[in-house]
């Protein structure tokens, strides 16, 4: 199994949205993350979220740095205002149903098996998940 490093390729997309290169949908993604964290904190009667752990696949439209930036703004005046955002990058892993794991890393994305030409399956790399939160223990 091998990972395809796409983050830099996806970073290049940022500028094409126009002269304003602020994170765009990362803002709504950050807000969704905080909403999920807030709901979980409420369920355990906590008002202080200290860590929010995210799993972010390499093969998504979300840029890590843009998400971190958006999170800083979105967490203000919420129960996550002092929370640290931990991002685990999930590598993109490809597999051929016939030949097995793709072991030759491609320089650019290619979802066709280099050996037999069948379409490759994306095993991981599309994750955009809140894994867990850590909250202050209730005294």
């Amino acid at each position, binding site marked *: 199994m091998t990972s395809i490093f*796409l983050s830099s*390729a996806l970073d290049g997309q940022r500028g*094409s949205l126009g002269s304003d290169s602020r994170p765009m949908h990362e803002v709504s993604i950050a807000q969704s993350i905080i909403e999920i964290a807030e709901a979980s*904190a409420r369920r355990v009667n906590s008002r202080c979220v200290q860590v929010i752990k995210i799993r972010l696949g390499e*093969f998504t*439209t979300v840029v890590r740095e843009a998400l971190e930036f958006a999170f800083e703004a979105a967490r203000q005046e919420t129960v996550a205002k002092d929370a640290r955002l931990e991002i685990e990058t999930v590598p993109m892993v490809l597999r051929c149903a016939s030949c097995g794991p793709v072991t030759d890393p491609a320089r650019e994305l*290619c*979802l066709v098996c280099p050996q037999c030409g069948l379409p490759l399956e994306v095993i991981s790399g599309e994750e955009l998940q809140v894994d867990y939160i850590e*909250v202050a223990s209730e005294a």
Partner: protein
Amino acid sequence: MDRVSIQTNVLKANQEVASANRRLFEGEGTVVINLMSAPGAGKTSLLEATIRGLRGRYFLAVIEGDLQTDLDSQRIRALGARSYQITTGTVCHLDARMIARALTEFPVQGLDLLVIENVGNLICPASYDLGESLRVVVCSVAEGAEKPKKYPVMFYKADVVILNKADLAGASAVDLRELETNVRQVNPKATVFVVSCRTGVGIDAWLMWLQSAIESHRISAETQRS
């Protein structure tokens, strides 16, 4: 510190609304297209050609998404098709909630085809399920042969890729075969059409495919009801 396990998709809320939208569309037997592209690739032109080709035979309507103006909506209405404009302000993509809200004011009963023309953007819309049956991505030849490799998530998630402005390949010094190869490498399963909305080349093949999709959708909806 206490750890609380969540393991929830960040876009779960959008997914739930999208699934509700999808159930509504399936109940009506309506084929719904989420039409996406970079700004200026030719989504509205493709829509115009599609309306011209299908009107009179099928009931179709359009939901338009733009940051500003209703200029695209006006073009659609000029062809006699119903159109509903969503103006997002600064939001760079449509999401399922916006479509659900539109559906409270814009009835889709009796429609064979609903096209949702998304905001011109090859990044953000790829992440937001609207409840569509088909994702159609338009890429103009003038954008360069490398486009699919630069925006792989969008092209990977497409059911159909329409390569527009084929008549400009020479003037843009872009190799159409290279562009098509790049599409197929990023998405081996997509159905690809090479067209020019301006000259009409390739549009018949797209219309025939779309008609067949509408017909088979109709048949499976009727089978489910009986």
